């Protein structure tokens, strides 16, 4: 299998073209560049600080229980994001976890430890296992996701993320929380998008498209997860999407050290690319079999390009073997017949 000589993307990656030096077109035209984003990071960090100041000057500030609702998977990046929000930025944080019924036991322990250590409130939503199993099972062969979405994540992860984003946004609107934070790594989102205000007309359109796909996969079982008209009517226009790890220094060793002091430990039973979810390995395998490339290749390539990870480490993460017993257990839990 031919790979880009600069990042980790394989020849099977959609739209990939290699130049004479074996460097891929994604590297040549990347939105994430090594060492060239320091000024940009500072720009967006300053923008975030200005936004925080604006929120604190708002007359409603003292009555508002939370400044930010943070999507919290229990993984290393979202755990570090919580720490950054609560300690570095001194924000009033509500952490929200979507329990997709595949969270590793250690991840649940990590969630409790981190939230306790940081003294932040935590909300967990645990939908019916039957509904989720059907949703994930139906996602495996879903054909409604944009091609780019399938480069970034598996179909199963796309469905899970759509449900998470909807729930977080609904909760933020209902509770009047101005900031919504995600623990996206620098490889997952360009820094230019790390501090962005939601716009109602754009929200309506993107939510509408997402809803059509999720309804196709889940039918009416999706409805409780999705935004309703009343949420759009309530929407004030002062809700921001924040991805702090895109504009802060990202060093995995530092991250692990910091969250370790909060009682976080790496689960021993998740795959190489997840620190919280037992469904991940199965989702990755299904994606690879269907599309011919690993769904984490895009993010890892971005981390390599940005200088956050060596190419060697990236290649290792993408080629780690998966325990067949774990895959079988997930397959059974999803109600799939024997493969």
């Amino acid at each position, binding site marked *: 299998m031919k790979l880009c000589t600069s990042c980790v993307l394989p020849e099977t990656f*959609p*739209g990939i073209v290699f130049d004479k030096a074996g460097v891929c*077109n994604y590297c040549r*035209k990347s*939105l994430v560049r090594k060492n060239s984003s320091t000024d940009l990071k500072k720009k967006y960090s300053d923008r975030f600080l200005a936004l925080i100041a604006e929120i604190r000057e708002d007359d409603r500030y003292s009555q508002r229980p939370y400044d930010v609702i943070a999507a919290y998977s229990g993984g290393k990046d979202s755990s570090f994001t919580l720490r950054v929000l609560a300690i570095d930025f001194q924000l009033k944080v509500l952490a929200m976890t979507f329990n997709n019924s595949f969270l590793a036991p250690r991840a649940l322990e990590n969630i409790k430890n981190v939230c306790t250590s940081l003294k932040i409130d935590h909300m967990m939503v645990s939908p019916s296992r039957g509904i989720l199993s059907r949703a994930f099972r139906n996602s495996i062969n879903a054909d*409604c*996701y*944009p*091609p*780019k*979405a399938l480069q*970034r994540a598996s179909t199963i992860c796309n469905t899970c993320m759509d449900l998470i*984003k909807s729930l977080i946004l609904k909760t933020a609107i209902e509770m009047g929380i101005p900031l919504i934070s995600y623990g996206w790594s620098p490889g997952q*989102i*360009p*820094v*230019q*998008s790390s501090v*962005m*205000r939601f*716009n109602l*007309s*754009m929200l309506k*359109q*993107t*939510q*509408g*498209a*997402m809803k059509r*796909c999720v309804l196709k996969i889940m039918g009416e079982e999706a409805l409780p997860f999705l935004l309703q008209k009343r949420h759009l009517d309530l929407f004030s226009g002062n809700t921001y999407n924040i991805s702090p790890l895109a504009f802060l220094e990202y060093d995995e060793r530092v991250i692990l050290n910091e969250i370790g002091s909060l009682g976080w430990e790496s689960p021993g039973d998740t795959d190489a690319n997840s620190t919280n979810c037992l469904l991940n390995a199965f989702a990755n395998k299904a994606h690879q079999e269907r599309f011919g490339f690993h769904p984490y290749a895009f993010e890892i390539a971005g981390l390599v390009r940005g200088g956050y990870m060596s190419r060697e480490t990236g290649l290792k993460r993408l080629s780690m073997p998966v325990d067949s017993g774990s895959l079988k257990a997930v397959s059974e839990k999803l109600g799939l017949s024997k493969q």
Partner: protein
Amino acid sequence: MDVAGAVRSFIVEYFLFGDDENLNDHTSFIEEAIVDSTGILELVAFVEETFSIRVEDEELIPENLDSISSVERYVSSKMKG
């Protein structure tokens, strides 16, 4: 600068992987599932970097970003100042 051409090239290469069969200047990126909510952010990053403009929060609307012709109109007006 050929704004429409640059945007088309970016959309075809980055979001459609070379398949431009169903893409015209008025095709809705969102309605046709070419670009999702994360993709809009990537499009904004491309527009800011390529045309040296700043997309203000209130300008992040479908009328400015949801088709090749929309982006061309929006960018051209920003570049004129």
